[in-house]
């Protein structure tokens, strides 16, 4: 194996039909490889047409009088990277625990990896999914390999050593295999947790804050790994507070704040919430911008946060931009720039969460 490479070996065999011989695919990604945002040709597109990997219908969980989450419904397609966002206490982890059969829902239904969510189906569901909690939860007095051996035995893998070696290679930890987990840094512990989740070759991976506490290089490796898993058809349910991460990795995101506020592609959510906006900058502020913008039919609304800079909400950016430039030039304004105003997923998130009166995301 090339030093410093991030490698994923996948047997390509699911559920109980596991083989001792790694016969699937072998993928090697060099450290530092750029992570590309989900493309239109991603597996999500193909997966959307098939049976969803995860179907959630009106799921609610109450702890006595307290509601953890209520009436949550969504679907996740096979091979999709689904971001699950929300402030602290929004119910994200409880949702993951419910779908992972650790907690029973108060009402509602779900189908996880093709199996209806129920106590009776718990073992079968857990065999098909992998959950990595925010705290990787390692046995400090055992080595990395011993930790993985324990979990491999609990899953009943006959090819445990192959799987362990492959998982360690995938997270670049082969050279630390004999280290005691108690002596590992937070980032390395996180990677052991990921290796443990990868080892079971799950159909759906629930990753709860997988890059929490990781340095940028290690976080990039995790991103690369997630993208490579997506490419192989693994469905990923990603809980994160890092909105840039969600934007970069996720095909779709859901924003939860006890109730599900929205579900969709980041670009669609931006368009829904912020419409089409042009940002215009002029050398000197317009004398009477209100009167001037009122003369242009293509502008629905406008506002200005600083002198000489105007945010113009338009119906169609392509047709409105030339009209506006012509109008400004005709008015004698020195136009410095005209461009589409960019809104991030963070803007969407903050707008929705602020609507609920929750303040800032954490």
């Amino acid at each position, binding site marked *: 194996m090339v030093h410093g490479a991030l490698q994923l070996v996948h047997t390509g065999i699911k559920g109980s039909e596991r083989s001792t011989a790694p016969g699937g695919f072998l993928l090697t990604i060099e450290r530092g490889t750029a992570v590309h945002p989900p493309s239109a040709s991603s597996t999500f597109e193909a997966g959307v047409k098939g049976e969803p990997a995860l179907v959630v219908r009106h799921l609610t969980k109450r702890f006595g009088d307290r509601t953890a989450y209520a009436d949550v419904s969504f679907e996740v397609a096979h091979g999709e990277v689904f971001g699950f966002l929300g402030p602290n206490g929004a119910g994200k982890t409880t949702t993951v625990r419910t779908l992972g059969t650790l907690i*029973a829902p108060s009402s509602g239904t779900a189908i996880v990896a093709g199996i209806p969510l129920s106590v009776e189906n718990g073992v079968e569901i857990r065999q098909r999914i992998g*959950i990595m909690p925010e705290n990787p939860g390692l046995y400090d007095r055992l080595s990395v390999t011993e930790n993985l051996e324990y979990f491999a035995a609990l899953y009943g893998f006959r090819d445990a050593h192959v799987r362990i070696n492959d998982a360690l290679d995938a997270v670049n930890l082969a050279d630390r295999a004999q280290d005691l987990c108690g002596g590992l840094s937070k980032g390395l512990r996180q990677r052991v947790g990921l290796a443990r989740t990868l080892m079971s070759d799950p159909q759906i991976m629930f990753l709860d804050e997988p890059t929490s506490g990781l340095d940028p290089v290690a976080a990039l490796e995790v991103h690369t790994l997630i993208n490579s898993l997506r490419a192989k058809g693994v469905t990923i349910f990603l809980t994160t507070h890092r909105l840039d991460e969600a934007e970069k990795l996720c095909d779709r995101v859901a924003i939860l704040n006890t109730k599900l506020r929205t579900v969709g592609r980041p670009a669609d959510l931006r368009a829904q919430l912020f419409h089409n906006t042009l940002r215009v900058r002029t050398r000197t502020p317009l004398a009477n911008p209100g009167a001037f913008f009122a003369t242009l039919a293509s502008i629905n609304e406008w506002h200005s946060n600083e002198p000489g800079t105007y945010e113009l909400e338009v119906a169609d950016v392509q047709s409105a931009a030339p009209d506006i430039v012509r109008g400004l030039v005709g008015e004698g304004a020195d136009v410095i720039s005209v461009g589409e105003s960019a809104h991030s997923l963070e803007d969407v998130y903050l707008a929705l969460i602020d609507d609920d009166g929750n303040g800032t995301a954490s």
Partner: protein
Amino acid sequence: MNTFSSARLMAVIRKEMRDYRRKRSIVVTMLILPFMFLIEPVVAIFVVPASSGVSDPRNYVILPVLYLLLIPSIMPSTLAAFTVVGEREQGTLEPLLTTPISQQEFIAGKGAAVLIPTMALTYGVYGLFLLAVEVFAKSVVSSAIFGQGSLLVALILMAPLLASWSIAVGMAVSVRATEIRVAQQLGALASIPPVLLILILAVGVIHPTLAVALIFSIILLGVDVRAIRIVAKMMNRERLVTGSKPSR
């Protein structure tokens, strides 16, 4: 449909044993405690012959021999109290419960991992005690101990039953506790009923005959089965993860 997997059971036991071995304080405590309980009986059996005019030496060996039953009563409670709350505190419980392991396998594995070293050390100490009696004690003492079938039955039969009781109580406390220290302190209370039982036998409120030993063993077995069933009911995944009773 889930079936009990002996492979998963063995995985839990192996991991626990490995974990014990790496923690020196656990090993030292495990080894020291049983030998502390060996001192009193050994001293007692050597004192008996010195008492001239002893009409029936059997009455003098009952207490020290029954004293050995405190080893399986007290020793496992601390370890058992750690089983769930310890995993919860170090954050390993949730990843463990996301695997296909069933509640039964979890309980059996954790319980067996405490029972095995407890019984190994208990019987080891019994062996040393009986060896000391055979080799060093006067014949009147030796025959008093080996001649009383009830004492040997009590030692051999009741030891795993008393240990199982302590383990079941320790695990029940561990499920409910929010802190390791609290669990270990409460878990130690599990040894009170066995201690009382041993005292009742030792002071002669009930004379320890073979029939009494067998009856007590059967009662203890019934109590243990009931206790283990209660623990099994408590071992709900939601309760283990959240630390509170499952709610709908």
